[in-house]
Every structure is written in C-alpha cells, then in structure tokens.
C-alpha cells in the first residue's frame, strides 16, 4: 500500500497505522505521541497529540476525512494522502492539545526527575506557548505511596493509560488502575497498596512524564549530568540488556534501552533495574547514543571518567526535602505509623 505523508511517499504493509508509516519515513513529519506505545497492545488514541489531516482517504475513495484523525490508531489505505506539519489545522490542533495538557500540569520541571527525557517537555518546547491563559487553581491530588521502588506524582500525570496496560500485559496481577473520572481521574491503587511485581518497574520507563519515576534515583541527579552506557548481564527473568546511568563510578539508575521515540527496545525485570547498582554486576558495552538534539548529549564522552565523590550529597537531599515541604509536594518517606503498617503488610 502506498501512503503519502507531507509529500513523501512510502510503501507499507496493510494494517500499518499512519503514525507507523510516518516513523518509517522519519524526520519532522512524525507526529508526536504521548499515549501510543508500539509495544503495548491497545494503546493510543487518547492524548490527541498525533492528530493529522487526511486530505485523500484512498485511491478507491478520494474524499478527504472531515475530522482530524489520530494517526496512531488510523490504518493507512492504498493511495492515502496525509498532511502532518504541512497543515495549519494540524499544527493548531497540536498547539491546542499541548495547552490542554499543560493547564493542570504543575510545571515543576526544575524539581522533576523526568526533566530532560520528558515527552511533555519536548511537546511543549515544540508546540507550547510561553504564556498561560489559565488563571484558575491547578488540580492537585493527595500523594499516594505505591511502594519502595516507584514514586507516583499524580499531579504530573497526563492519563495516557500506558502504565495500566503495562501492568495488564506484563504482570499477572494488576493492582493499580485509573480511578474516578473526568478531570479527577487518577492513577491509583485505591487502597495505597505497594505495587510489587517482577516487572512493575517498566511502568517508570513507559511513563511519558514524571508521574512515575524511579524512587531509588529520586533527586540524585539531573539526567543530563549522568553518563548513559549500554550494559548487560545474565538474567534468568529478562533480556538483561539495559542502559546504566552513571555518575563517576556510581550507577545511579538503571533503565531499559529506549529508542528515538523513547520506547523501550525490550522490557527489563525489577531485579536488573533496582538491585544491581554495582558496576561489577554488569558488562558495559559502551556509551548509549541519543538523538542529536537531546539534552542528554550535552555530556560528551571524550573526557576521562574519573570517580566523583560528592560529600555534600546528604546535605543537598536534606535541603530538597525541606524545599519540597514548602512547595507542598508529596512526602517521600512514609510517616512513622504508615511505615510500620506498610512493613507489616496490612495496609
């Protein structure tokens, strides 16, 4: 089947979506995707960032489609013609969606661990406005503790449903989901249960924003101060292929390897992600490359790797804890009583 996107044509298999076809072509025409995730069945269609204009339905039915279509869930037809960045309507719609996603977003990038690898940041950079027209109070949620490994920041969530699908498709017992509805819909376990499953950590990787972050990496570093390396180890649960985020000789974070669309190449298990922070556990393959405009590249790998010891780390974290209280973010440590209950498992 032949499909033309912004004037560039490509032959694709039947069943390919417009977004997939665009990714095959590559470049600026690829629509942004906040909720679609090729590795998760049933994802997509929700964020409306990837809307495109179909100017010709197909060779058989040449009529244009009246509405903008979500490219991630619209299959291509033979002879279809699509406008992505060449359509004013599309750019306007992307701007609109970006504005909608941001009106209730806390914009706390300076203290967010996702900053630097955040899809919403990238989207805002491209399609957002420097001003806001929203003068009302932003929506907030009560913090919820979902265990020792994953930090949930509901205020930042854009409800892409990716983490719910991850739990559904990768683990055998989903304990979190989307509760409530409308603009009060939230990711939650309802009963403040710990999400504890061999593959639950993948929720962190699929989250497009800073709603789910790695608790073991929390406030440790900005991602662009880390040096990412491809590494692997023998693992009987997963592929064992990861990216290590190093600071000197210290492994500060382990993630799956992500491609240029920030999708993981292969999911990894929690043991690899959380329990192997010793470089001796890993075979390091070499630096991980990122797309050329990524902020992560501001590191350069030509410098010598020298161990850096931060004496002040403890004090930095303490200061951040205090700041956080002032700006009403959630508590990291559980309160005394909660901690006890949590440990005993009767939450």
């Amino acid at each position: 089947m032949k499909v033309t996107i912004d004037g560039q044509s490509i032959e694709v298999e039947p069943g390919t979506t417009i977004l997939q076809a665009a990714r095959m072509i590559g470049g600026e025409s690829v629509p942004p995707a906040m909720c679609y995730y090729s590795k998760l069945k049933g994802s997509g269609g929700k964020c409306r960032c990837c809307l495109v204009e179909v100017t010709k339905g197909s060779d058989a039915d040449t009529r244009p489609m009246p509405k903008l279509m979500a490219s991630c869930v619209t299959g291509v037809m033979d002879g279809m013609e699509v406008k992505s960045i060449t359509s004013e309507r599309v750019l306007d719609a992307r701007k609109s969606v970006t504005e909608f996603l941001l009106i209730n977003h806390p914009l706390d990038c300076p203290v967010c661990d996702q900053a630097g690898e955040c899809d919403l940041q990238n989207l805002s950079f491209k399609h957002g406005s420097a001003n806001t027209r929203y003068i009302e109070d932003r929506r907030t949620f009560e913090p919820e503790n979902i265990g020792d490994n994953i930090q949930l920041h509901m205020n930042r969530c854009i409800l892409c449903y990716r983490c719910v699908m991850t739990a559904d498709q990768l683990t055998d017992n989903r304990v979190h989901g989307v509760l409530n509805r409308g603009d009060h819909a939230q990711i939650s376990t309802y009963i403040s249960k710990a999400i504890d499953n061999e593959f639950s950590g993948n929720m962190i990787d699929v989250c497009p924003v800073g709603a789910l972050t790695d608790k073991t990496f929390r406030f440790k570093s900005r991602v662009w101060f880390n040096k990412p390396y491809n590494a692997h180890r023998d693992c009987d649960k997963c592929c064992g292929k990861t990216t290590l985020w190093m600071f000197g000789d210290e492994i500060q974070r382990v993630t799956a390897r992500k491609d240029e669309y920030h999708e993981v190449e292969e999911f990894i298990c929690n043991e690899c992600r959380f329990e192997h922070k010793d470089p001796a556990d890993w075979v390091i393959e070499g630096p991980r490359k990122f797309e050329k405009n990524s902020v992560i590249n501001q590191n350069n790998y030509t410098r010598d790797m020298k161990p850096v010891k931060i004496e002040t780390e403890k004090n930095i974290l303490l200061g951040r804890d205090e700041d956080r209280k002032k700006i009403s973010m959630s508590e990291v440590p559980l309160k005394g009583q909660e901690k006890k209950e949590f440990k005993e498992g009767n939450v």
Partner: protein
Amino acid sequence: MEISNAKQEINITPELQARIDELLSHYPADKKKSALLPVLHEVQDAHDNWLSVPLQDKVAEILEIKPIEVYEVVTFYTMYNQRPIGNYMFEFCRTSCCCLRGAEDLMEYTCEKLGIKEGETTPDGKFTVVGVECLGACGYAPMLQIGDYYKEHLTKEKIDQLIEECKAGQVNLH
C-alpha cells in the same frame, strides 16, 4: 482519595446470593465480569447503601475478577457510594431544566430545614442532601430521587411532607 474506614458488616444472605446468581445467568458463563454493575447495585442495596473496600473485594471474589477492576468501576459511576450515607438520600436534580423551575431554591430550602449543607448528612444519620446532574425528569421539574424512586413536581409543602414521612418510616426505598 478519601476512603472510608467505617466498619461494615458483610452479609451475603441466601436471598442476595440467589439474586446474584440470577444476574450472572444473564451473561455467558465466561463473561462474569459483565454482571459487575448490576451485582454492585444489589450488594449495595443490601448493605446500607454503601460499598466499603472489603465489600468491594468480596464482589471481586464472587465475580472472579481483580479487586482493582471493581475499584475502577465503583469510582467511575456516581451511583456507588464509597462512604456511609444517610438512610434517606435526597438527590436533587440541579441541571438547567430543573433550575428553570426552581430546583436550586428548593434544594436550599431542604438543606436549611434539615440544618445541613449540600453533600452533608444530618448528625442522626437519617438524611443526606446532594445535588446531582440530570435525572431525566425535566418535564416534571423540580424533582428529586430517593432510593429507587423519583418525587416530581415538588413544592416546599411536598418537601415538608416527604421529610415527615421519612421520619415516620413510611417511605419505601427499593
């Protein structure tokens, strides 16, 4: 999210179990989850009109689904109560068509009479007043729902009378 810790005695009586079995028979044997909404209604009606977490877990067990699947549904639909409510819940329709006919005044009147604000329950646990969205009785406005029934063409006098009847235990809920 606020979850009520109030204690609730779970009692799946034989009659309730029979009703659940009947509802389950309406769906293919491998599609038990489909019965979730009607089953929740029945279980809630039999348990003082609210659903505690253990009760929701019980429903999950009956339908052989994950507890989170029940929580997701309970929090989505407005008719499932997640905390104890008064014996008589006055649900006033406050969407435009009813407002044109004085629903707001009437709700305020009721709240004042019962000495509570919208969304609250009287201290004796008898009455709750809430405003809800369109109940599909626009031509018979103003109106309210109490239990399974609608009270329509309301006036202040009818509200007075209704409250008296509730106090005397003469109002059927189901």
